């Protein structure tokens, strides 16, 4: 019933996991094979929805991670970043964000362009204040309160 889709690709001790769809009350992460995995790279590019029960299922899953497991998150959408900032335990203890999306709002055409921000270790994130709107090519302005949105990086 869940619209959640998990794709796994294991290479040695590294597991590449692609998550798409919605994480909700039916989310089941039990079949993600963490056996002998030391690094899990989680790609959240296709994550479309995350509700309160999904947050609970996610935390239940991440609480079972072995202490030795390192987790790197790629392409985190705003809905995931919001929970990392708000919900203690959403970002697992050994988890780091390697890249995430920042929304930019265009007043000209009322659309949102998502800008992918890379995170480099030891380098402070310096997001542009404006980018080109992908829809009308006019100027789109950053549409988050930076002090709040970048909290998870600290």
């Amino acid at each position: 019933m869940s619209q959640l889709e998990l794709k796994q690709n294991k290479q040695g001790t590294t597991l590449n996991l692609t998550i798409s769809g919605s994480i909700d009350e039916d989310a089941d992460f039990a079949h993600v094979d963490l056996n002998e995995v030391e690094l899990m790279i989680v790609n959240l590019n296709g994550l479309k929805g995350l509700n309160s029960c999904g947050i609970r299922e996610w935390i239940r899953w991440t609480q079972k991670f072995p202490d030795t497991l390192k987790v790197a998150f790629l392409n985190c959408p705003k809905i995931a970043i919001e929970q990392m900032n708000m919900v203690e335990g959403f970002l697992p203890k050994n988890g780091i964000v390697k890249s995430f999306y920042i929304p930019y709002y265009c007043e000209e055409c009322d659309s949102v362009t998502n800008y992918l921000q890379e995170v480099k270790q030891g380098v402070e994130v310096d997001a542009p204040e404006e980018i080109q709107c992908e829809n009308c090519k006019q100027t789109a302005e950053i549409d988050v309160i930076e002090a709040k949105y970048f909290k998870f990086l600290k």
Partner: protein
Amino acid sequence: MKWIDIDEQTKIKFGSFSGVNLAADCTVGRAGSNRDIIVDEYESELQALECLADGKVSHYISTGARAPDLAFSFATRSMDDRSSFLQDPATSYFFGKSIDTVKAFDFCNVKEKQTVVSRATEYAQNVSKAAAIADAARLIVEELSMNALYDAPGCPPGELPQNTQRSHVQLAISDDTLLLSCVDLYGSLDPWCALSKIIEVLSTGIGPSIGMNRKQGAGIGLTLAQSRCESFIMAVEPGQRTVVSCALALGKRGKSLEDQKRNYHILIQEEQV
């Protein structure tokens, strides 16, 4: 605190106020009776909610909200007539204004709920000036519809509800506002309990508040929903009907949602004798 008696004249006077000139500490109540409306500066959502809960006040209007006059007008009307909102949330909330669109999606189990969330979200995404609030709209529809299912009487503990009475999600647009409502026919919501739960979650943090061992709701849904909207309404006719609504401003930037000041309304229709 300054107390103002409400009578027909005062209602008219306050019904057209702009919000900016109102005394910050002005509290409005019926003469010699319970306090019904608080009009106040908004320091934080927690402060506003505690203010409501402490006095069991029905309406909290923030002077810093986008449209305090709309909220105040709704509050004063609701003092005399709670049933209109319970029967038709959009017409009652947007009283006297033309409503551009009303859409309703009904459901009675989890599978249908998921379809409703998809359809309602798709609809909201295509609404003019809604780009920045699309994620918020989806989350609100998710949480309100889930509560309608999980709070259904007779749902066995530890099991997901299968076939309950039909509930519906309603979307209505007027005056640069999107009103999302979820209507169920149980009337089992206790707004004061729900308010206490939201306050508890905000006080202790969302993570520690999650009911990790519950099969049903996680216990944080209403907190998430109310934190995305500019007006949050819980209405109940015990044993008959529950309506929970969130009003969102259209044409605003996404970041304005994060720091927006909110209005709260609690409507309880006494049981008919």
